[in-house]
């Protein structure tokens, strides 16, 4: 198979029916093959990121132009470097939950705390219930300070920030929730 170009495409628009159809039809018209896709709707706003491989003669500017015609949504296209191979998941993936009273800067504080300790955030979701804000982060401790040190730091951080922080291993989460 001839060498193909891998591109990352992001789409944003006020949510309405038909966005996914418009974008993916545009991609396939150019011979693009989807590798992965994730869409999400937050507070009425649609966002989607997708990764696709295109024939070698198709460049990012052409994809962006074609998609601008096939959809009225805001689209940006970036050529991806390297291969599309999935990175090997480490066995140090944990789920961190942080619950506290809703206020400005909570996500910033938690993510800064993680970054400062070499912890990579793999996935993040939040949930608001009344004035209570809940954050759920999937984090990788493979490159972090030791697990013990991270846990100790987490306890101190919880005390300082008033957040209730719970760390559980991703395997426990999966074992207790998957059938």
């Amino acid at each position, binding site marked *: 198979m001839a060498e193909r170009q891998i591109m990352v495409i992001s789409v944003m628009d006020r949510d309405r029916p038909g966005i996914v159809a418009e974008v993916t039809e545009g991609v396939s018209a150019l011979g693009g093959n989807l590798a992965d896709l*994730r869409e999400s709707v937050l507070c009425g706003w649609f966002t989607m990121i997708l990764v696709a491989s295109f024939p070698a003669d198709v460049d990012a500017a052409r994809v962006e132009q074609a998609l601008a015609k096939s959809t009225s949504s805001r689209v940006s296209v970036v050529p991806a470097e390297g291969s599309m191979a999935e990175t090997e998941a480490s066995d140090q993936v944990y*789920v961190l*939950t942080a619950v506290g009273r809703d206020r400005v800067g909570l996500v910033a504080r938690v993510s800064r705390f993680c970054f400062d300790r070499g912890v990579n955030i793999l*996935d993040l*979701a939040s*949930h608001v219930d009344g004035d209570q804000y*809940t954050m*759920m982060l*999937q984090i990788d401790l493979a490159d972090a300070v030791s*697990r*013990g040190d991270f846990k100790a730091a987490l306890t101190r951080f919880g005390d300082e920030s008033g957040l209730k922080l*719970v*760390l*559980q*291993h991703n*395997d*426990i*989460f999966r*074992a*207790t*929730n998957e059938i």
Partner: protein
Amino acid sequence: MIRSDQILNTVDMIQKENLDVRAVTMGISLLDCRTGDAESTARKIEEKIKSLAGNFVETCDRFGGKYGVPVVNKRISVTPIAHVGAGFDRAGFIRLAKALDAAASAVGIDIIGGYSANVEKGVGQGDLNLIRSVPEALATTAKVCSSINAGSTRHGLNMDAVALLGQTVKDAAEASADANGFGAAKLVVFANQPGDNPFMAGAIHGLGEADAVINVGVSGPGVIARALERKIEMEGAESLGLDDLAEEIKQATFRVTRCGELIGRKVAEALGLPFGVVDLSLAPTPSVGDSVGEILKILGVDDVGAPGSTAIVAMLNDAVKKGGSFASPSVGGLSGAFIPVMEDSVLAEAAETGCLTLEKLEAMTCVCSVGLDMVPIPGDTAPETIAALIADELMIGVINCKTTAARLIPVPGKAAGEFVSFGGLFGASVVMPVRNSGKSARFVRFGGRIPAPIHSLKN
């Protein structure tokens, strides 16, 4: 992608419900340790246990730490020693008990089980020598537990053995009189004893097992109690039926079983051993909030022992099995709720107030495992009465094709109503009265066997 509702559920379980793995037990076959004499057999036993279990405790702690779910008890079960020591005299058996104790201390485990014999149909000379050595073995070792299987659905109940064991229980208590008869707390008499049970005092490594295996006993009753409280608080008692509560128990057990199995399998993999079974039993500890009795109260009886208690235990036991068996492909051991009086603070309290009697306890054991467990009785109870109590309990198992057992402690010098404490996981309680004491001697003295029930003829 992470789903918030699922995560919050598990967070609650880990944080509020004190999730743990109750016991990881390494089963070890000692059949190849047998030589021509007790001394060299004892040395081989020690060597084998040390070589297989040298990293066992550290491995359990490592995975407990990694997953945030502590392994409370690390234990070892071995081939019933009557098989290993057949042909040795009483002193030879005691030497083997000391080897087990020394090996257990060397590898840092809590308890070692398997100072055991199976006499369900007859008592061999090796069995007899082992049983005669039990009181001294238990009084002079710290970590050794003994269990004797005296009956089965297949073969009926060996009443000669039961009579002997009634006396042995009494002797075990008296040999450890300075410790309130603690020796008897390490001796349990079974019917239909399983060979893969990870819980003490009755753990053995059965003859049908591989050379070594890892078995896991999943968490305690605290998790179930908290899950039920949360369900009732969220939905209101008036809108919930017992079927809804049984369903909640099932779901909580499912999650707990999955955690236990995950950790057990990781430990087995790290040690290069096969994974055996998950035992779904709810095993209480004397800690407040870790009680089967508390679950009964949440489910609607004001005191344990009140009418309804047996029905609730039956429902609880069944729901635990349903949730657990769906969670794991390899369920075994005892797999039922335990109601050990001294080890369960709410049961002990009910015994103290008189709400829970020995007779009601016996009724409750008909629908759960394991039997009359950790029951302190007056020190002057006659051996024949102890044997008759054992016979009653074991026949419940024989007739109903289930495991039952008796771990009775005739506390030396104490009468009904007096308090006894063994500390730690063995707990404390008042001595329970035995009504109609001394009226069963003629029955026990008949001896012989109670024949196997008609439904043993399955072929």
